[in-house]
């Protein structure tokens, strides 16, 4: 199966071809079958390939294949050897986790979509986009060099744009007046900024090391990377800016909340589980580089931690069910980056995986809620839906507990590992910020749960009366994801817990991933020994913070009606600030867009009056000349003949005199 890994991105592409070319003539059933089928096939191939990979000895778990040369190049940089960039695909422990997550979660969401999109127009178009996304995401994670990854990187960006703007004819956000198409455009443009930095980073890499191959770059850096320290820092930061765009980190996070304009399965698949994690994946992929550029890692850690708490505060006041989840996603991505920034690579990937499970589940649950209420998204108009949507409620609460980091659900283990990584690497401030945001996460997630599922319904009555549980196609994926959210963390039980309670280290995940990532030697604080008791204490502390968050949420939104309003009243400036998302959009508008528009207007005016004026002047001159020359156009052939003859005579006279 290993030899077939190139099939993994191609399979969804086949779905694109079939549905794209014949989708309009096929029945919805057939379209859905093909759309899900190809992803299932990709999942099976992936599973087979990973199984085969796991049978190899630990240090040989790497397989690379090429579909041929893509860009042949001359000698580049210091290497002096002829370089060529192949269409290379590689499978190693890191990408194996990614493809399993992508195809697995992707498949569940595809199945879910069949139910969710049942009544929408453009059914085939939706699955074409989704399949294309799968193909691109798999290209991204399987690419053996940065450029192939970049193809997938851009491809998923395109699909993201297409899917955000899927309902291109509908309005989206009343506050900013965006339409769905605008939201898509915003996502695309913000991503461009990041991609620009990414490309520059790549160019630096290839001109310096003569290769973009992950292994080649890693080898080059290990071999003589320290000589290029400044460059490595620069490249690290540039690539991280690219990751910021894709993974919605400060300052480029603004597109992700608006990306909720897309259909909910899209939010679940692209804007929660897979695409937005591409940045994390990429950073971990380049772990060797970052290990040699601690300054870049510091930047990542700071940005990640800031994003985590920053987004969490915005999540507290959001009222749109999907926006809450979106901010939560941004926050959790911040977590992952913080983990990567402190050198806890496996923790970042571990959290990436568990997050994919429970965040996808949350989104799908939210989708189910929305679906059940015929499109209502405002949580202030919901309440008491527990009875109407039992399956959704059960799965949703599981995911909420998981994201809050309650033992023994998946989130607990991954979050704990990140926190421990932050503490143990000496980044105590990062630890503090992350712990606080963990509490906030627990708070806003339970706020959401309470507002949606408990209390009295606050919307229109007939909506509540007609609210219904979703079809099987939607609930079954929910249940599967719920199960994963529960057990998903158990493959990464921290060594201290395993040793203490099970007598051995059962952190399978860590050992699986270890050969694929750099040991973060050289990063500050690593290697320092900490006692098991400290780890237990921190674990307990984190759990306590999460429980405290839940408790506060319970008090405010469950026990005392109206307390939320009075708190908001008392801390009005903070509330208003959070409510308006720190005015970041407005800030960008004022500092970037306004000057840009002004410049554009200036050049538009320049174009209209000067450039067009020149063009028009040409026309006017031609017209006047024409009017004059018209007088010579008598229409009498003999006049022309006479002039012709005059010319002949003139030439002859000239020739005779010369």
């Amino acid at each position: 199966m290993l030899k077939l890994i190139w099939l993994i991105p191609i399979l969804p592409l086949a779905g694109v071809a079939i549905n794209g070319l014949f989708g309009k003539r096929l029945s919805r059933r057939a379209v859905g079958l093909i759309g899900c089928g190809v992803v299932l096939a990709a999942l099976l191939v992936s599973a087979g390939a990973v199984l085969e990979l796991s049978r190899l000895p630990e240090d040989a778990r790497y397989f690379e294949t090429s579909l041929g040369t893509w860009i042949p190049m001359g000698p580049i940089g210091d290497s002096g050897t002829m370089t060529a960039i192949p269409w290379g695909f590689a499978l190693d422990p890191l990408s194996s986790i990614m493809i399993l997550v992508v195809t697995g979660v992707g498949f569940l969401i595809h199945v879910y979509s069949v139910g969710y999109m049942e009544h929408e127009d453009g059914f085939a178009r939706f699955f074409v986009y989704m399949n294309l996304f799968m193909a691109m995401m798999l290209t991204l994670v399987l690419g053996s060099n940065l450029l192939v990854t970049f193809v997938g990187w851009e491809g998923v960006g395109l699909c993201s744009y297409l899917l955000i703007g899927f309902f291109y004819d509908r309005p989206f956000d009343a506050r900013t007046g965006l339409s769905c198409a605008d939201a898509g455009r915003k996502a695309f443009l913000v991503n461009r900024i990041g991609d620009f930095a990414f490309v520059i980073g790549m160019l630096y890499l290839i001109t310096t090391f003569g290769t973009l191959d992950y292994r080649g770059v890693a080898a080059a850096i290990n071999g003589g990377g320290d000589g290029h320290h400044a460059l490595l820092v620069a490249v690290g930061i540039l690539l991280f800016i690219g990751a910021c765009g894709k993974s919605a980190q400060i300052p480029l996070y603004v597109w992700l909340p608006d990306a909720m304009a897309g259909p909910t399965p899209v939010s679940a698949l692209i804007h929660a589980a897979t695409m937005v994690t591409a940045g994390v994946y990429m950073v971990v992929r380049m772990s060797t580089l970052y290990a040699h550029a601690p300054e870049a890692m510091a930047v990542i850690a700071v940005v990640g931690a800031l994003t985590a708490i920053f987004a969490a505060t915005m999540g507290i006041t959001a009222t749109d069910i999907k926006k809450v989840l979106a901010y939560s996603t941004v926050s959790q991505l911040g977590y992952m980056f913080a983990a990567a920034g402190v050198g806890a690579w496996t923790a970042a990937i571990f959290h990436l995986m568990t997050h994919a499970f429970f965040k996808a589940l949350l989104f799908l649950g939210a989708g189910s809620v929305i679906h059940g209420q015929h499109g209502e998204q405002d949580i202030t108009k919901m309440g008491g839906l527990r009875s109407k949507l039992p399956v959704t409620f059960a799965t949703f609460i599981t995911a909420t507990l998981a994201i809050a980091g309650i033992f023994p659900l998946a989130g607990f283990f991954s979050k704990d590992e990140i926190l421990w990584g932050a503490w143990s690497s000496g980044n105590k401030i990062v630890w503090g910020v992350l712990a606080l945001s963990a509490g906030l996460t627990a708070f806003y997630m339970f706020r959401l749960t309470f507002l949606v599922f408990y209390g009295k319904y606050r919307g229109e009555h007939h909506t509540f009366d007609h609210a219904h549980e979703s079809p099987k196609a939607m609930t079954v994926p929910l249940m599967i994801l719920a199960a994963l959210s529960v057990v998903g963390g158990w493959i990464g039980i921290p060594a201290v817990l395993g040793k203490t309670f099970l007598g051995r280290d059962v952190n399978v995940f860590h050992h699986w991933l270890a050969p694929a990532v750099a040991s973060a030697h050289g990063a500050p604080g690593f290697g320092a020994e900490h006692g098991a008791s400290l780890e237990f204490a921190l674990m307990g502390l984190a759990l306590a913070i999460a429980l405290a968050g839940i408790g506060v949420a319970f008090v405010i939104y469950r026990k005392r009606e109206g307390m939320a309003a009075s708190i908001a009243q008392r801390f009005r400036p903070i509330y208003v600030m959070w409510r308006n998302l720190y005015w970041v959009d407005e800030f960008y508008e004022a500092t970037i867009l306004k000057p840009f528009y002004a410049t554009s207007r200036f050049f538009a005016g320049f174009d209209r009056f000067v450039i067009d004026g020149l063009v028009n002047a040409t026309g006017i001159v031609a017209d006047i000349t024409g009017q004059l020359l018209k007088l010579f156009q008598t229409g009498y052939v003999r006049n022309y003949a006479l002039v012709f003859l005059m010319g002949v005579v003139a030439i002859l006279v000239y020739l005779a005199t010369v």
Partner: protein
Amino acid sequence: MIDPRLVLVLSAVLLSLGVVGVLTRRGAISILMCVELMLNAGNLAFITFARINGGPEAQIFVFFVMTLAAAEAAAGLAIVIALFRLRGTTDVDEINLLKW
């Protein structure tokens, strides 16, 4: 003996007369005829050159010019006939649809 220069001057005069005809006549066929006159003036010059050089080239050129004139007459007259059928005249001044 004849002075070749005289023949050539005669040819030039005939050519000029043809030119004047083309410039002043109004009937399409008359203009065609004047063109024939010019062609013949050219031919006369060719024959003179042939006689001067003693070779066959210039004569063969005349041969080609004649063929060309025949083709020109056939096509030109066909056009005139088509024109006449369409506009009821062969007066080139009346045929001014494309003017301005």
